[in-house]
Each structure stands twice: as structure tokens, then as C-alpha cells.
């Protein structure tokens, strides 16, 4: 039963989706309950997985591998695609976060009223795809979940969104599809260059894996005996690369001057940067957020952006370490640009949701900065930022949702002095906004502190002046969040859209259920971050060590 947990985690929502599809329209009321049970089971499972996660080793846990498709490519040998799933330090936090955010999203979807069957089916399909993305250890399987997530999102934003939702959803779909095609190109290049030593060994009758790799390096295996694979662990180990293949790390295969592998790294980087989103490629996010309904905004900001970050960890940095090392400086520059640019844009926004969207762009800049530093602190900071931003941004979008539900208007200047009529809501908003600007005592602070420590101590990759400029991000973030609090919550009470007499009612019971767990988690992980970070510490340290060890010989850098 132990290693079937992950499979259940992926296919349970699909099962519920089929049930929702099967039920007739008159039982529509039951759809949201079904979705809630599905997501709560998922939440319980992900918590159980996290608690059972062994924090002392860095290898894959709950690992499972079964043969799925084996293509006979005649001259190029055979291609074996396996249903390989497993979780390690890099993905266990994201699985936990997905459980939490999907559960919160399910509750906040309570108020969806039209075309409920379509909505809840797509929501469940989306949830299973997200889980699949974080759990898949086979590039093909990851790509299946990564691509198939776009369709439900397209319909969810398009059908239940705001006025310009058609434009926003098609822009989201096209933009992310372009990114995923870049990833597809690299995926194909990789599988043509990598063999699975275990299965090739079985085919050749050689049991020992290193011996197979020796034979491969010596080129004594005929090409039709090779068993090519999509498995990420195999792609991570440079011994599995066929000498002379496009992406083999040993020989230099150039495509007009620069190495194939460097082009592959760039394509992967752009693919995941669109998803992150990184600054020049971010313009789909504000539109998607403004037009998406609240629960979908929560899911989009809560988890979908983290798939981009996770992609950097697992694919860009995991498979092409020398590319990462080579361009660490530029990634850091892009990260800092995202922090400052996102922050400045957020300051000039009139719509609350757009402001939070740009603040997400700014926070994701920290992920890039943490990663680019390639230090233990920086990598841990990047992972923690993804986790804590998942919580804080979900809470922020719920806040925007609360206001939107009451007055159908998100412009910041149409409100003032909400504190006098909605005291509890003000308390929650002040806590959430201060948590997102990195006040100590909340998880945001730990994450940003680690990222800064990483940026400063990576003095051979990131120059100190760049780290200092990144610190300005703290100031910009504080500026726009405080402006929002002061403009909307304090000062004399005045709301444009509300009819004079009626007071805006404070948080309802349902809204409290959504906010309390998020606030508790943000506070808990702010005070005791080791609850979360100790579990992933060995994997992160192993990840950094591997990047340095694999990438260093190909880059003229002095190790730290």
C-alpha cells in the first residue's frame, strides 16, 4: 500500500470527476460536496505523505516504476516510457501546498452557480493534473500532465471569468503552449541521447549498471540494443548519455558555435520562465488573474506558478547544471529585475487583483535570485518562497474575492476606511499583507531572508551590488502593500459602489474556514520554519552539490 499512495493521489480526483459527469443535472448541489470530499482526501493524503517523508535522505521516496509504453525504433533501439512516480525533497513541499490550496479553492468555489457540472469536473481534472506534475519522475508523464493542465484552465478562466475572459484565456493558453513546445523540443533531444542503464543491462544480459555505463562510454553497445528512456533520474546522471549524441555532455556538439546543451538549457529556461512567470514573459498573468473567478485565481497563483519554479529545480538545474552555472549571473539579473519591475508595476495598479498579480511576479523574482545563487541557503530560500508565497497569495486573492463578492468592484480607490465596518476582515487583511511583505514572524520573512543570505554569500556567481539592489525589493513591496492598507482600510469610511445605508457585512462563516488554516500555517512556519525545511534540507543540499559537481568542470569558475 505504501507506494500506491501517489497513484491514488493522482487518480482519485479523476474518479470523482467521472462521478460528477455521470450524475444528472438536478443533483447539481451535490457536485461541490463531491469536489470538497475529493480535495479533502487529497489534503489528508498529502499531509500523511509529508509526515511520513523521511527527512534524512535525499533520494526518491514512495518511488514506483512500471512499464507503460515501449516503442521499437528499429535502428535507434527501443524507447521505453515508464509510469515512474516518486517524491523527493524538491517536490514534497509542492505536493503539500497543492493539497492545501486545492482544498481552499474547493471551499471558495462554493458560490459558483452556473454550469456547475462543467466547472467541478474541470476543477477535479485540474487538481489531478497538478498533483501529477509534481509527482511524475518521467519527462513524458510530466509533459502529459503539464500540457493537459492548460485545457481545464482555458475553459475555467474563459467560461466563468469576467468580461474580457475570452481574450485572457486564449492569451494564457497560447503563451503557455509556446513555452511547453520549447520544453517538448528539449524533451525529444534528451530521450534521443539518454539510455536507461537498467533496462539496457537486462537486454544485454549485463546485470551491473556501472558496467553497462562503461560499455556505453566505450561505445561497445550497438545502437539497436540501446533502451532509450524519458526517466528524469537517468537523464540527471551524465554517464547515461550516449557518446556522440546531441546532448551528450562529454563531446562538444555545436549548432553554429554555441553548444547544443546550452541551447537546450535556454529553451527549457524560457519554457519554464513563461510559466514562472519571469518579467519579460509575464504579461499573461495580470490578464489571467483579473479575468479569472476567485477560486481559479487562488489555484493559478497558489500552485500553477510554482510548477514553473519546480521546473527550474527539477529540469533546468537538474539536467543541465553547467548551463545553470554558466548563466547564473544573468538569471540573477533577471530575478532582481523581476523583483524591482514587478514591485514598481504593482505600485501603479488601480485594480487590487492586478496589484496582487504583479506582486506574485515580484515574489517569483526571489525564486530566480535564490536559485541563481546556487548556495544551500539560496536554494532553500527559493523553495520556501514558493511554499510561503503559495499560502500568502492564495490568502490575498481570497481577500480580493471577499471584496469582489460584496461590491463587484475591485478598484482600490473606490474604498476607504473599511476598518470601521469590517474589523475582522481588516485584521485578516493586515496580517496577510504584512506576511506577504516579509514581516518577521510569518513564513515570508524566513524565505526572503534565506534568499538574501544566499545571494550575498554567492559572491563568485552574484556580485554584491546586485544583491544590494535586490534588497530594494523589500522597500518596494512594503510601499505598495502599505499604500493598499492605508488607502482601503484606514481613513474615514466611504465605499463608492455600496448604496449609502447598507454596511459591508464582515467575514461570513465560510470565509473564516478558508482564512484561519492559511493564517495559522503562515504564522506557524514563520515561527518554526524547521517543521517544513528540515524535511527537504538533505535533498536541497544534495541538489546544490550535484549542480556544482556536474557543472563545474565545464565552466571556468572557482567553487565557493
Amino acid at each position, binding site marked *: 500500500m505504501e507506494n500506491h499512495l501517489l497513484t491514488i493521489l493522482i487518480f482519485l480526483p479523476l474518479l470523482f470527476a467521472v462521478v460528477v459527469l455521470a450524475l444528472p443535472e438536478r443533483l447539481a448541489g451535490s457536485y461541490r460536496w463531491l469536489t470538497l470530499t475529493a480535495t479533502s482526501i487529497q489534503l489528508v493524503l498529502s499531509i500523511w505523505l509529508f509526515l511520513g517523508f523521511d527527512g534524512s535522505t535525499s533520494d526518491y521516496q514512495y518511488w514506483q516504476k512500471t512499464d507503460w509504453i515501449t516503442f521499437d525504433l528499429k535502428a535507434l533501439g527501443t524507447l521505453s516510457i515508464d509510469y515512474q512516480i516518486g517524491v523527493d525533497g524538491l517536490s514534497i513541499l509542492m505536493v503539500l501546498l497543492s493539497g492545501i490550496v486545492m482544498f481552499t479553492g474547493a471551499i471558495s468555489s462554493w458560490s459558483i452557480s452556473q454550469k456547475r457540472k462543467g466547472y467541478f469536473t474541470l476543477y477535479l481534472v485540474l487538481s489531478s493534473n497538478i498533483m501529477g506534475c509534481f509527482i511524475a519522475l518521467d519527462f513524458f508523464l510530466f509533459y502529459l500532465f503539464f500540457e493537459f493542465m492548460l485545457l481545464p484552465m482555458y475553459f475555467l478562466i474563459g467560461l466563468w471569468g469576467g468580461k474580457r475572459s475570452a481574450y485572457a484565456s486564449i*492569451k494564457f493558453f497560447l503563451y503557455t503552449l509556446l513555452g511547453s513546445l520549447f520544453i517538448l523540443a528539449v524533451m525529444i533531444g534528451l530521450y534521443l541521447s539518454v539510455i536507461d542503464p537498467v533496462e539496457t543491462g537486462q537486454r544485454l544480459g549485463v546485470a551491473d549498471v556501472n558496467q553497462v555505463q562503461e560499455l556505453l562510454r566505450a561505445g561497445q553497445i550497438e545502437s539497436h540494443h540501446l533502451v532509450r528512456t524519458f526517466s528524469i533520474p537517468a537523464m540527471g546522471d551524465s554517464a547515461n548519455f550516449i557518446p556522440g549524441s546531441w546532448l551528450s555532455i562529454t563531446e562538444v556538439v555545436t549548432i553554429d558555435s554555441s553548444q547544443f546543451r546550452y541551447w537546450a538549457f535556454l529553451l527549457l529556461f524560457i519554457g519554464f520562465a513563461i510559466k514562472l512567470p519571469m518579467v519579460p514573459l509575464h504579461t499573461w498573468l495580470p490578464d489571467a488573474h483579473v479575468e479569472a473567478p476567485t477560486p481559479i485565481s487562488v489555484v493559478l497563483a497558489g500552485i500553477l506558478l510554482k510548477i514553473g519554479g519546480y521546473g527550474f529545480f527539477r529540469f533546468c538545474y537538474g539536467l543541465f547544471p553547467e548551463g545553470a552555472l554558466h548563466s547564473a549571473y544573468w538569471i540573477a539579473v533577471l530575478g532582481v529585475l523581476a523583483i524591482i519591475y514587478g514591485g514598481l508595476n504593482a505600485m501603479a495598479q488601480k485594480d487590487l487583483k492586478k496589484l496582487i498579480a504583479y506582486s506574485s511576479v515580484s515574489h517569483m523574482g526571489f525564486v530566480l535570485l535564490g536559485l541563481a545563487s546556487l548556495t544551500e541557503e539560496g536554494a532553500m530560500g527559493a523553495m520556501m518562497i514558493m511554499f510561503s508565497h503559495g499560502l500568502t497569495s492564495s490568502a490575498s486573492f481570497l481577500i480580493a474575492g471577499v471584496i469582489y463578492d460584496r461590491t463587484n468592484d475591485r478598484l482600490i480607490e473606490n474604498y476607504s476606511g473599511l476598518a470601521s465596518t469590517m474589523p475582522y476582515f481588516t485584521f485578516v487583511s493586515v496580517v496577510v499583507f504584512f506576511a506577504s511583505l516579509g514581516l518577521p514572524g510569518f513564513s515570508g520573512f524566513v524565505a526572503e*531572508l*534565506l534568499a538574501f543570505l544566499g545571494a550575498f554569500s554567492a559572491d563568485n556567481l552574484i556580485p554584491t551590488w546586485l544583491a544590494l539592489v535586490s534588497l530594494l525589493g523589500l522597500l518596494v513591496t512594503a510601499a505598495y502593500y502599505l499604500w493598499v492598507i492605508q488607502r482601503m482600510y484606514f481613513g474615514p469610511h466611504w465605499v463608492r459602489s455600496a448604496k449609502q445605508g447598507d454596511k459591508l457585512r464582515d467575514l461570513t462563516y465560510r470565509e473564516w474556514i478558508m482564512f484561519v488554516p492559511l493564517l495559522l500555517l503562515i504564522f506557524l512556519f514563520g515561527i518554526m520554519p524547521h517543521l517544513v525545511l528540515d524535511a527537504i*534540507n538533505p535533498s536541497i543540499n544534495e541538489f546544490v552539490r550535484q549542480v556544482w559537481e556536474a557543472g563545474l568542470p565545464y565552466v571556468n569558475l572557482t567553487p565557493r
Partner: protein
Amino acid sequence: MNTSITHIAILSLLFAPFLGATITLLLGKQSGTHWISVAMVAVSFLLACWLMASGYELTAQYSWLKITTQRSLSFGLRLDGLTQVIALVVILVSLLVHLYSVAYMQSDPGINRYFSFLGLFTFSMLGIVLSQSLIMIFFFWELVGFSSYLLIGFWYQKPSASQASKKAFIVNRIGDIGFLAGIAMLWSWFGTTDLDALQSLFVVSESNVSGWRINNIQVPSLALIGVALALFCGVIGKSAQFPLQVWLPDAMEGPTPVSALIHAATMVAAGVFLLARVFFIFPSEALTVVAYAGAVTALIGAISALAQTDIKKVLAFSTISQLGYMVLAMGVGAWFAALFHLVTHAFFKAALFLSSGSVIHSLHKWDDSSITHIDAQNMKYMGGLRKQMPVTFATYTIAMLSLAGLPLFSGFLSKDAIIVESWLWAIQSSNGLSMHYLIPFIALLTALLTAIYMGRQLFMVFFGESRLPQSASEPTEVPGLMKWPAALLALFSLGIFFSINPFDGQAAWLTSWLIMPEATLLTTHIEDSYHTHLIIGLTTVLLTLVGIGFAYRQFQDKPPGEVNTLSTLARVSYHQLYFNQIYHVVFTVPFETLSRGMAKLDQRVIDGAVNAFGVAGVVVAHLLGWLDRHVVDGGVNLTAWMSGKIGQLTRSLQGGNGQSYLLWGILGVILIIVWLFQFIQWRITY
């Protein structure tokens, strides 16, 4: 055995106010819950006294977050002389302010919220004082900034209050950025931010030509100065030093007890406390910069205080000026004198603020009872209050004289010590006339100005005739719960409380508690000479008396001048040397235009580029669509029309539409052949 008890004692001392704060916040509605938070602060006060008496020393370490086997972020508790003294001062002042606020905030609906924020502040301030590692200090540093944000913006209905709280937090945040940069640099070099560990590293460091060799890491001297000044940024932000002092005068929007506790005694002193803690990191060049910053702040604070009309603004600027003194003292290496001044200043400034609060409170009560409406904080309505409010008058005078620095008062002891040390330092480090003499000169000048503005306030508020508009009642004395805590604080500002010999600051009993840490980076050593001590002492006393006399003659029974009638110098001082306006023009306006520009850039250029792709695709589609329509259908219609025409002429020509197809078909094939020959052939052979 005793360490475990002290351990528990320290933890309970730290967390008692926090517990009080959460309880009062949760039981928000019931009345009387504020007494719980007062009780909690009293508990921690008793604990502090017990710890002070027992004289235990303790440093404890907890690993907060493990990063690698060698490096981990650590929190720790530290109990030594400095901690005990400062903790006691903080808790004592906080307790008295709590008592005072019970009466002051009685009529306010948000009283529970007020007391919980006050408890949160005390908790975070104690956090700073007790912490062992720089990261823990930073942790509580920002929490202190957050609680002061909450307290300044307590009356959130007032737009000016929420504006001031936002400004305070952001300016503090600028300072914190520098502080964090310093911590991160130290972390990148030594992998730890634990003060003991750093201290042991710096003690064993030896200087060489290009910098310092610490823990076999070659640290260039410029980088070390950079780190020291980065840490000093934190001090500038929190203690309202020269570039970032604009937030403190606006912070007066908060309730007066808040100003008394936070913006007089404790929070602003946190900066000086941090300087004391990280003193060993500062090389002497950095200390000179600190000294000049302190001196400039002292001068600016004093000048701005001269022409203020608001009773609390005068005290705010005097706080900035006195903090300048403390930073100046640290700069010249007078570690003990700075901290001694911090302690004495905490008492008499808190007393001054509380008594001014009493004045404002009684004027408010009088204003409510009478039909007129006056601004209770403006000094032009005050005057001759010594008759109606005798106790407050006495408290105010004692504290004012101590601040001005007359002998027999604590102020004199600490301020005189600072001026003497700065004088000795100037002689020492410059051997002959040089710029460094400027520091003691500014110190003396500020002493004179302090006497003038404090004298002015005393005579304006309490002497002369009452300038209140005619009304039946008169302002009455404040209730006991407000006047006795202030009186107690005034008592502490008497000289004998600190040292028997009223003239020698070094004799204070505090010296046994506040021992200067061993700082090897300091190159200049100061010998004390009795001769200079005497002369400087006399000159300061003389200057103070002159100042008070001038104030008496100038402002005995006159209201503060109306802004527009002020002389240019007075108007400059009233507008705080126009710092606010300068910063607004230099920083805020360009910051906002930059962000609006970025938003437009993002909207037009980057989003535009994406849409351009879409548009380009559509344009190409249109082109091909046009080609498709006109060439194919158009061809059909054209040829239909043409064939109609030709048909009428010849009737024999067969329908032409097919040919247009062929034309394009064959043309296509020929084009490809041509392309193949011209382009590919050349490319292959070439």
C-alpha cells in the same frame, strides 16, 4: 541549577507581555481586560528586578533553522550587565506608561486594542534586548517597527495618523535594508551571526596592510567599513538619525503615552543599544563617521525644536537631538557615557512626555466642558498652568532641568561625560587644530540650544497668564493615576539616584554593570585628565544657565509666534529645515512617476509585443486571406466578368477561371525550380 531557573525566568520575562497582548486582543470586547496586560508587564518587571539582584550571567543557543551540517541560523538568549540594565529601564518605563494609559485612554472605545499593541511592543523590545544573534535582533527589530506602525496609526480614522504610520514603517524599512545587508555580508564571510562567536573571531583578528585577517578570511578594510556602516543604517532608521529622522515628528500623531514609551524611552534607544552590541565590529574610520552623523543629528534636532508650536513636537525634536548625543558618544568611543545617557534620557524624557500628556488631557477635558474648540496640543492656548496643575508643573520642571543638564540632575552627569569624552577624543585624534574639534563644539552648542528650547517651553506652558479663551471653568489637575507615574519618573532623573558625587559621571554605580566589550579594531585610546574634566564641566553649566536666562527673557509671557510672522530663521526651524519637502521632491515624486512609467511600459511595450505577435499573425492571415479571396475567388469573379466581356465578343473562348488556377500552379512550380537553382545550387557548391 540556577541557570535553568534563570533560563525560565528570562523566557517568562520575555513572553509575559506577549501573553498579555494576545489575551487582551482575544477578549477584545469585555471591558477591564486591559488590566491583564498591565499585570503581565508588572510580572516581567518583578522578574527583571530579581534577575538584576541575582546578577546571573547566561548565554543560551537554540538552532532555529539547520542549513548545512556546519551552518545553521541560530537564535539565542543573552543575559549580561547591559541586558539587565536596559531591560529593567524598558520594563519600568513600560509599566509606568501602562498605568498612565489606563487613565489616559479610559474614554477610548479601542482601549483593548491599544493595550494589546502596547504589550506586543514591550515583547518585541525585550526581544531585541535579550537576543544573542543578529538575525534574532533583526527579527524583533522589524516587529518593533510593526508595533510602532500599529500604535502610531491607532486612531485610524484620522488620515494624517495612518499617513504618519505608513511613513514611519517605510522609513524604518529603509534602515532595515541596510541592517539586513550588513548581516548578510557577515553571514557570507563567517557563516554565523551569533554575537559571541563574532566577538571571539574579531578579538583574535589582526590588521594588515590591505585590511583585516579575521578567522583566516582576508577582509578588505573598505568592506569591513561598509559592513559596519550597513549595520549603522539600521541604527539611523530606528533611532531617527540624520538622513532618516523625518518620521519621528510625524509619529506624534499617536496617543501621547505611546510617544512617551516608544518615541522617547525605548524604541528609539534600540538603535543605540544595537551600536553597543556590535561595537567590536566598527573600525575607527567607521566610528568617526558615526560621530559626525550623531553630531549633525543633534544640531538639526536642536535647531528644529526652537520654533515649534506643538508641545509634543518640541519634545520629539529634543529626543532626536539627545539621540544624536548618544550616537556621537558611541562615535567618539565613549561606550559607557552613551549608555549612561540612554538610561538617564529614558527617565526624564518619559517624564516630560507624560507630563505634556497630562497637560493635553486636562485641556481636552476643559475643551469638552467649555463651548469653545481649541487644538489641545498647541502651546499658544497654554500659559500659567503652574497654578492649576502643581504636581505636573513640579514633575515637568525637574525633568526639564535634568534634560537641560544642570548639576545635581542625572542629565548633567551623562551629558557632561559625553562632552568631556568628545573633547578628549578631539585632542587625542587630531593632535593639533583639525576638523575633529567640530564635534565637541557642536556638542556644546547643542547643550546651549537645548537649554533655550526647554526653557522656552517651560515658561510658555507654565508661567505667565493663561491664554485660554474666556470660559467659566479652568483646566484642572489630572487624576492620580496619571500624575504619580510621571512624578516617579521625574524622581529617577535626580542626580543622586545615579551617583553620590554630583559632578563625576564615571562614579555612577552603573559602571559595574555596563562594562565596555573589548574592541581590538579601535586604534585610538583616550586617557582621562582631571584638568579638562573640570573646565568642560564649568562651561556646560554656564551655557545652560545662559540658555535658560535667555529663554526666560525672550518667552516669559508671550505665545509662540504665528508661522507667517516668524523670522526666516524661525520659519526654517519650524519647517524642520524643509527635510520633508526635500525628501518628497527628491524621493517620493520620482518613485511614483517611475512606477507609473513602468506600468505604462509594461502595458504598451511588453504586452504590446505579445499582442503584436498576435496582430502580425492576423495580418499575415489577412494577407493570405486576401490572396485567397482575390486570387482564387477574385480570379473567378474577375475571369467571370472578363469571360462575360470576351464571351460577348467572341463567344468561342472557353471559361478562363481554370486558367488562373493553372497560372498560379505552374508559376509556383517554376518559382521553386528557379529558387532551387539560384539559391541551393550556390549553397551546395559553395
